[in-house]
């Protein structure tokens, strides 16, 4: 196909584009004169279709990082993308990761641990920004063993001296409830199960706060508590229809795992609620049990401050205990007047006991190590050691022979 123009040699217009090996050439068909040679590189690729060259590629910054570090950083970035974290988090997590890997105690750990290190950095970043992310989530994303993750996390916290604020329960409630599939009508969710999200979140939050005030949260894994509280709040919002539903069924329908401790937490929560119910004037007529108390959770939560004070003898008030509290005024009385009944009454009414963590109220029988006896204390460490005492630990020759014969020792 001829381009426009004529050959400068012979003036012919028969110009042909031909390739001399790999090079394009514009050649005159009549005299063979080469008019133009193709460029070795085409303008098409460079100038018209420019691509942005990343800073890290042009400056060789990437080459400065080891491949292991590059892979780790990519992993951290992927994790952040999966969790849909803001970009600020990604940068912070990557910087922590770089600091950590350079630290002598992490420099030579196994690849598995380095991957967990990346996860830990993401976890720490989220915690520092009050983003409620549980270790369980990270472990499941990394397919990691919880114990290994725990040890890497603790050593990371110690070596880099990071201060990690505590997990905020309020945020955890919101995040955890987001994963419940009860807030919209769906094919597999029966109509009575569907619930309004706002109401459920508020009530669950109140129950979780109640749990934390009554020592049910300290020292325990937070997720089972939130699950149990969610179940109770869901039941109490429509008790007529939902009382018959079991905890397991609830979790199955909601599409959420039922962690094993959640049953115990549910039991403890119900016990607390029953104690509170015994102080509510208009409920004392009824015989409350674990099922019926659920119907009144709304009332109990509304008056929880007053009820807690009455239901439990808070230690501070023991000293200023007033005698004989027969009737309770429904309006919150001044602190001096309420308080707990005297000790004697406590047993009779089955009334307020001290507000203690469950581990103190139901102590497991444990062998208490006896205080050192007088003879123990008298040991100086330099006593003479009798031969007979030592010889009792040595084998006699027959014994040795017997062992050798039994080929216990090759």
């Amino acid at each position, binding site marked *: 196909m001829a381009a426009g123009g004529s050959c400068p040699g012979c003036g012919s217009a028969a110009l042909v584009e031909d390739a001399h090996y790999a090079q394009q050439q514009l050649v005159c068909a009549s005299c063979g004169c080469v008019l133009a040679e193709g460029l070795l590189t085409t303008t098409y690729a460079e100038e018209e279709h420019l691509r942005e060259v990343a800073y890290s590629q042009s400056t060789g910054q990437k080459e400065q990082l080891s491949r292991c570090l590059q892979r780790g950083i990519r992993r951290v970035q992927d994790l952040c993308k999966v969790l849909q974290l803001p970009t600020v988090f990604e940068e912070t997590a990557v910087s922590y990761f770089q600091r950590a890997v350079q630290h002598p105690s992490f420099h030579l750990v196994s690849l598995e641990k380095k991957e967990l290190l990346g996860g830990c950095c993401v976890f720490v970043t989220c915690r520092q920004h009050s983003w409620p992310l549980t270790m369980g989530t990270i472990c499941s994303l990394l397919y990691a063993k919880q114990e290994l993750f725990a040890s890497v996390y603790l050593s990371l916290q110690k070596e880099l001296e990071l201060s990690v604020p505590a997990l905020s329960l309020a945020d955890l409630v919101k995040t955890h409830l987001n994963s419940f599939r009860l807030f919209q009508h769906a094919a597999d969710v029966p109509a009575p199960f569907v619930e309004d999200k706002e109401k459920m979140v508020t009530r669950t939050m109140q129950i979780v706060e109640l749990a934390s005030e009554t020592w049910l949260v300290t020292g325990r894994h937070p997720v089972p508590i939130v699950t149990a509280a969610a179940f109770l709040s869901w039941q109490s919002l429509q008790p007529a229809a939902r009382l018959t539903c079991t905890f397991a069924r609830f979790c199955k329908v909601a599409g959420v795992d039922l962690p094993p401790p959640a049953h115990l937490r549910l039991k403890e929560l119900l016990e607390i609620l029953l104690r509170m119910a015994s102080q509510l004037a208009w409920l004392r007529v009824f015989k409350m049990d674990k099922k019926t108390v659920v119907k009144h959770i709304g009332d109990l939560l509304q008056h929880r401050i007053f009820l807690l004070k009455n239901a439990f003898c808070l230690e501070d008030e023991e000293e200023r205990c007033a005698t004989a509290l027969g009737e309770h005024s429904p309006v919150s009385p001044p602190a001096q007047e309420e308080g707990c009944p005297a000790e004697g009454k406590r047993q009779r009414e089955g009334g307020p006991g001290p507000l203690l963590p469950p581990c103190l109220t139901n102590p497991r029988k444990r062998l208490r190590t006896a205080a050192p006896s007088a003879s123990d204390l008298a*040991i100086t460490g330099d006593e003479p050691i009798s031969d007979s005492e030592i010889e009792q630990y040595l084998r006699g020759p027959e014994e040795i022979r017997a062992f050798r014969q039994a080929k216990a020792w090759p």
Partner: protein
Amino acid sequence: FKDDLSTSPQLFTSMSPYDVDLPIQTTEDVLFSSQFNQSKELPADFSSVDLSFLPDITQDNKEQNLSGDSHEMQKELDGSIPRNEDSGIFMDESSSSYPDATQPSPEASDVCPPLTPMTPMTPVTPASESSGIVPQLQNIVSTVNLACKLDLKNIALHARNAEYNPKRFAAVIMRIREPRTTALIFSSGKMVCTGAKSEEQSRLAARKYARVVQKLGFPAKFLDFKIQNMVGSCDVRFPIRLEGLVLTHQQFSSYEPELFPGLIYRMVKPRIVLLIFVSGKVVLTGAKERSEIYEAFENIYPILKGFKKAS
């Protein structure tokens, strides 16, 4: 020069609970009273005393000097090597020539103005009454060098109380009944002794193990016996709000209920790790000396008690 001490400038009054702890005397000999005991005869001969530490007043000293509780001091000095650096100031002071006494004052003047410690110190409640609770020692780990190569197979064959499984662990595990302890004996001749309830018991047990090894025909010695770790525990008898504690003492505490039900408190001075549980039980570990455990507990008790009232 007694008068010099009593009329010494206000700079030193804050350090008055520091009785003159003379390193040349054993701590048992020095009786501590809460008053600055002037009646103690100060030895005139300081030739055996090492004064090389004098110029430095470290942060440790400042912290100690400002804590007004001599009771804590007493416990601290009882079981441990006397803190030479603290008494150093007084050493200089009590030397016969008065000009020397002024020597420490430039340094001391650094001490007295309000201090902002550069390293985070566990907050100390001044002049607190003692808790009345004494942590009980539960475990002592010590090491000793038997200074001879050992044939572990031979030991396992000839000793009744030994177990040896080279595929699992490269040491013989030996146990004795009295004091009830366990020892790990390595072929290099080094030995680790665990399970004793006091330093003396640990030492006695280690000696017994060494005797067993001797009787088996090895030229075992008993060198460099050292206590490596001491673990104690006690109960404050009231529940503790761990979430609150981790908020106020964030730089020392680590509380992860997802991982472990207790709060891990890393005390800076003394360098002890405490495990604090909601039930009020406290485990203290990482001590090289008994006094560190007692001191750590006395430091943490007011913090925990303050917490109990606030909640």
